[in-house]
Structures are given as structure tokens and as C-alpha cells.
């Protein structure tokens, strides 16, 4: 099952590369730099997905006390941090040639960075509690509090004046993206989702192994 997911993800990423570089045209205003979008946007969407899973799994753990939920929260949280980091780095590399700056303290960038820091803290907390069960409980509480921040992050771009353009995909009105670019973005998004599922199942297996050894 995991192996199949892995191959599917690899295939999807290859297709995404082909779509991003071969099929999709360069952007009228930005030129080829715009192709960074095919990494940047799927990364943050994957991260949001991961953090949503953390919230669900945290609530699930607190109510049922099944280790499976904690395993899911831990694994999704770690992968979410990786993808948020990727979003920040790729966004920064995209920002330099287009906006003319690596980083600016506008609402969207700042709140994404804060999201990253909150979940880094979440992972650190897990590492610092010796008692497994207690660590799971505490992490679940932090996971819930962290998730409350996510809507603030996402809606910030809609109500704050910012240098970051409004979201293309998750905006209330359909944004004007030409069909070929939209399709390439979709393929890359699906590929990243597959990759996320593959990494998640790998991370879950690793966590299960850790528990067996500790037992």
C-alpha cells in the first residue's frame, strides 16, 4: 500500500514537473519565474492539510485516548512543518526577482512564519516530555490552540492590505488564471497531496516502530 503510494507520488511529481515546465506557458507579466508557483502553492496547501489533520487528530486523541490519533497528530505535524518551511523558502526565492525583496513584514508572510514557529514549538514540546502519554496530551492541547491561528492566517490576506497578491485558489471569487496554468497547478497540487500521503504513511510506520521498541 505504502509502496504503491510512493510510486504514485513519484509519477505525480514527474507529471507535475512536465506540466509546470513543458505544458504551461510562462506568465505574461512575470515570465518564467512564475513557475516557482508550482512548488510554492501546493506546499502551503499541503501544510494547511497537515495542520487540519493535526487539529482533528488532537481532538480525537483527547476524547478517545487512542494512541493511533496521537501517532497521526505527531506525524502530520512534522510533515506540516517541513512543507511550511518549503513554502517560506520558495516564496522568498520567488519574491526576490518579482517584488525585489527576499522578505517583507507584511501580514501574509509574517503570519505564515508565525504558523511555522508555533508548530516548531509543538514538535519541540513532544521531544521534551519524557512520559509518552503526558506528551501526547500536552501536544494535543498545543495542536488545538495552534489550529485556531490558521483561519487568522488565511483570511489575513483578504482583509489586510498587503504586498502579497490575493490567494488564487482559495479566494471567494474565481481568480483569473488561464486554463493551462490552472491545470498545471492542479496536477502539481494532486502530486503534492499524494506525496504527503506517502510521507505520512512512512512517518506513521516509523512512529509505530518507535512505540514497539519503547514498550
Amino acid at each position: 500500500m505504502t509502496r504503491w503510494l510512493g510510486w504514485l507520488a513519484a509519477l505525480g511529481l514527474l507529471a507535475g514537473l512536465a506540466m509546470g515546465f513543458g505544458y504551461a506557458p510562462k506568465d505574461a507579466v512575470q515570465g518564467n519565474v512564475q513557475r516557482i508557483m508550482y512548488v510554492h502553492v501546493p506546499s502551503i496547501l499541503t501544510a494547511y492539510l497537515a495542520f487540519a489533520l493535526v487539529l482533528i487528530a488532537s481532538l480525537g486523541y483527547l476524547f478517545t485516548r487512542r494512541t493511533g490519533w496521537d501517532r497521526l497528530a505527531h506525524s502530520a505535524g512534522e510533515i506540516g512543518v517541513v512543507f511550511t518551511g518549503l513554502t517560506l523558502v520558495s516564496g522568498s526565492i520567488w519574491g526576490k526577482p518579482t517584488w525585489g525583496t527576499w522578505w517583507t513584514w507584511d501580514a501574509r508572510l509574517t503570519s505564515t512564519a508565525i504558523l511555522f514557529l508555533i508548530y516548531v514549538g509543538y514538535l519541540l514540546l513532544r521531544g521534551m516530555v519524557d512520559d509518552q502519554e503526558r506528551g501526547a496530551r500536552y501536544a494535543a492541547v498545543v495542536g488545538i490552540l495552534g489550529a485556531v491561528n490558521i483561519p487568522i492566517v488565511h483570511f489575513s490576506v483578504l482583509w489586510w492590505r498587503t504586498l502579497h497578491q490575493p490567494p488564487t485558489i482559495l479566494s471567494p471569487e474565481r481568480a483569473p488564471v488561464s486554463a493551462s496554468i490552472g491545470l498545471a497547478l492542479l496536477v502539481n497540487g494532486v502530486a503534492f497531496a499524494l506525496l504527503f500521503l506517502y510521507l505520512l504513511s512512512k512517518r506513521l510506520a516509523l512512529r509505530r516502530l518507535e512505540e514497539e521498541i519503547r514498550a
Partner: protein
Amino acid sequence: MPDHWGFVFAAYGIAAVVLFGYWRRLIRLHAELSALKARREVKR
């Protein structure tokens, strides 16, 4: 508008390094832990 291929490749390169590195880490830890578990079972 210049192409800035350097920035594009840097972004894709870093993404590849990060994702591949994370994947390798998972595989390596998994292998180490499986070996540890196998050794323990032999001892028993």
C-alpha cells in the same frame, strides 16, 4: 522581463533537497529502528 532561471532552479532544487532529505531520514531511521528491534528479539 528577464527569465531568472537561476531563481527557478534554486527554488526547485531546494524543494528537491528538502523533500528528498526528509524522505531519506525517514527511511534511515526506519532501517535503524528495525535493526535494533531485530537485535533485541535475538537476545531474548
